[in-house]
């Protein structure tokens, strides 16, 4: 979905977001490239939030200038694989009637 906001309005939102999140881009053309990603994320947010009865809301978090691939590569580094086999304790095993 396209955002209903004007380009100028989105640009103002982006500038405000840059200040709030203390973002600086040094590379040539980086700010423009990030702006396009920001716009894509904004569209996603507006599309999600426009559906009534959603249980949760999306917003312009500090990751709003990242693509999904970039976000995954930088911030999602949890590894399921462990060096040893897990020991499963039964102290918290749920039994009917637990208090």
């Amino acid at each position, binding site marked *: 979905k396209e955002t209903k906001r004007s380009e100028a309005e989105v640009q103002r939102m982006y500038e405000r977001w840059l200040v709030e*999140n203390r973002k600086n881009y040094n590379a040539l053309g980086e700010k423009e490239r990030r702006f396009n990603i920001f716009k894509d994320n904004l569209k996603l947010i507006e599309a999600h939030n426009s559906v009534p009865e959603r249980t949760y*809301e999306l917003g312009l*978090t500090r990751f709003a200038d990242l693509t999904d691939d970039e976000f995954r590569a930088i911030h999602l580094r949890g590894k399921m694989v462990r060096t*040893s086999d897990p020991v499963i304790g039964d102290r918290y095993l749920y039994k009917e009637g637990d208090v």
Partner: protein
Amino acid sequence: LPDEVDWREKGAVVPVKDQGDCGGCWAFAAVGAVEGLNKIKTGELVSLSEQELLDCDRGGNSGNFGCLGGNAADAFEFIIENSGIVTDKVYPYTENDTAACKAIEMVTTRYVTIDSYEDAPHNDEMSLKKAVAHQPISVMVEAENMKLYKSGVFTGPCDHWYGNHNVVVVGYGTTERGEDYWIIRNSWGANWGESGYIKLQRNFHNSTGNCGVAIRPVYPLKSNSAFGLLSPSMFKLGALIIFQLIGWAL
């Protein structure tokens, strides 16, 4: 089991931290669980050092790789083998893993120990609920679509079979509309989500839990007597004994 639990209200959760552009979620999840357990067992809430794990828990047999990733279980293993973990103040966070491990003299520094760690029963949200009723629990979730989360009960979409982000479950509850949720402490700063937390759908139709939250929960264990040396509790105990001895001598 209680209908709701929130370890923040019991003072067992330190303020939300920010891992920045370092993939050290595993260290934050491990440290968060140990901080909570330490508060429950000793009455003391101490902010502990993720940086020590990032710098020192790597290489050899460790499955952790600093900012390139890891898991909380291997971090617990390190804390046990290292005979404890030092505080944030002693070994502060730098958002990178380029420095060598600093040798902190454990005898003269405050630190916190754990005895062991184990998994809660896998793929069982009721057991996870029971575990969270006792202490904060480290879990792995699939967090790709949490990137832009702002508020409310997150229902996905996300993969239910594979986690890629380590976080700490610090409670659970139910909204007025009847939506059950886990209270999850993230490490993306207090400006993300609900002041750094996310409510994740609980009682999912799949045993894995939504976003895989129940696949493989893990928690540290600590006996009541396992105080860190030079902790205020130990100081108090030492002072009491000294005063008692002086009293007897007089």
